């Protein structure tokens, strides 16, 4: 497989799920910056504390795109509480692994999710996600 990616990664890379922006999202996450070569934006639609829809836009490598796609699938239909348990490790596992040098991309996806939930909580409760700080190194 090219670049040492699993078939699952390549599937999500070729056919990314939930690509795009969202009209009036309930939460927006934005992480990364162009200097690092990875940027991810996540849009959430939340109803009764359940994520009913997730979308993303990503500037980044194959792993960044695949983890973005995978995390939107993993969280759709989950409560916010459940979604917060989706760690970068769960994303990697769901993708049948990532090459060592690409593991950091999964942190980006996790951060985008948390950033979006943080945004949602700030908008709805006035208080962000407790104890959350985006990673510095993407």
């Amino acid at each position, binding site marked *: 497989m090219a670049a040492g990616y699993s078939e699952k990664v390549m599937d999500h890379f070729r056919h990314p799920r939930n690509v795009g922006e969202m009209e009036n999202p309930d939460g927006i996450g934005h992480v990364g910056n162009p200097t690092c070569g990875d940027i991810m934006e996540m849009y959430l639609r939340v109803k009764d504390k359940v994520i009913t829809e997730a979308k993303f836009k990503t500037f*980044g490598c194959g792993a960044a795109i695949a983890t973005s796609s995978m995390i939107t699938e993993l969280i759709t239909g989950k409560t916010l509480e459940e979604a917060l348990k989706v760690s970068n490790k769960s994303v990697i596992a769901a993708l049948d692994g990532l090459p060592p040098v690409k593991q950091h991309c999964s942190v980006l996806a996790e951060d985008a999710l948390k950033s979006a939930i943080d945004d949602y909580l700030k908008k709805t409760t006035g208080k962000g996600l407790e104890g959350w700080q985006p990673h510095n190194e993407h």
Partner: protein
Amino acid sequence: MRQVYMDYAATTPPLPEVVEAMLPYLDEKRVFGNPSSLHSFGQEARAAVEEARAKVAALINADPREIVFTSGGTESDNFALHGVLYANKDKKDHIITTKIEHSAILAPCRFLEKQGFKVTYLNVDKDGLVDPEEVKAAITDKTALVSIMHANNEIGTIEPIAEIAKLLNGKGVYFHTDAVQTVGQINVDVKELGVDLLSASAHKFYGPKGAGFLYIKKGTRMKAFMLGGEQEQRRRGSTENVPGIMGMGKACEIAKIDLPNRIKHLTDLRDKLSQGLLKIIPDIHLNGHPTKRLPKNVDVSVQFIEGESMLLNLDLEGIAVSTGSACSSSTLEPSHVLLAIGKPPEEAHGSIRFTLGRLNTEADVDYVLDIFPKIVEKLRAMSPLVRRK
């Protein structure tokens, strides 16, 4: 699916004639001896190796005794730096090189710095050109070696080596050029270039992997790098890689004859490809010098999207290219070359290098011009850097 290999700067397939030339030296019924052995098995191998040496020398207008066989471009580069610096260490301790050298130069330079040697890393302009006057200005009475690549592997810019050599003349410094991307591809004549040392790697010009050479001008004060036996006039220990050397010899022999055709073929394809890309795709830039560039090289930065994701999409369509994006390296740094020519990081991350070669055709270029714009479009639709209208 159509397979279009456009990564000839990474490696080239050995010519069938090259493989043919290697086989007798891999055959237990033919010439398998160690060239250092005095018996006929060894001397037959020795004679063959010397024939290959003559062919290598002929390609670059050198004397066969000025050619030392190595395991590849990296060894040749390490050898040149290590060899000159340690041999002249009693009087000199300074190297001048550039910020756009291959890591096979930059990594040994960093090692030598740790050992107390001094290194000046020269800037290049936005096209990747070194200014000969800056080279001259950097020379001190401690300078042992100037090492400047003949052409850059990533952006394809060809450096003014002969011009620099003229300015160095009489200054008592040795001049090395990393010609890994030029030998067998454009004219490389050590006398015209005026260099004392020159590195090459066979697999970059249709020879086998694992073989390279260092040209060392007669009289150059040099120590060995690969220390051991008395092979290669005591300049490089280790049993010679006879099949590899024979393959490289053949690759040189053919390159010498075929060079004008190669240049014409690739220049035509290159111009068609780069003009096509620049015309079809918006927000795309050609990296490197517009005219002083390798016939094979089309290096572009595509805005708003990242290199590896382009590369993988191209690969899914059978097109093999390379990228200067961080994602392709384990350091997660974008190409030092693109940064050195002043590209902002996001453009460096968005670079794609097409390098053409002998098996490429016009139809290949047409295929790329059909496929690549679609990929760019798809990825841009996914990019947060592109805002919806």
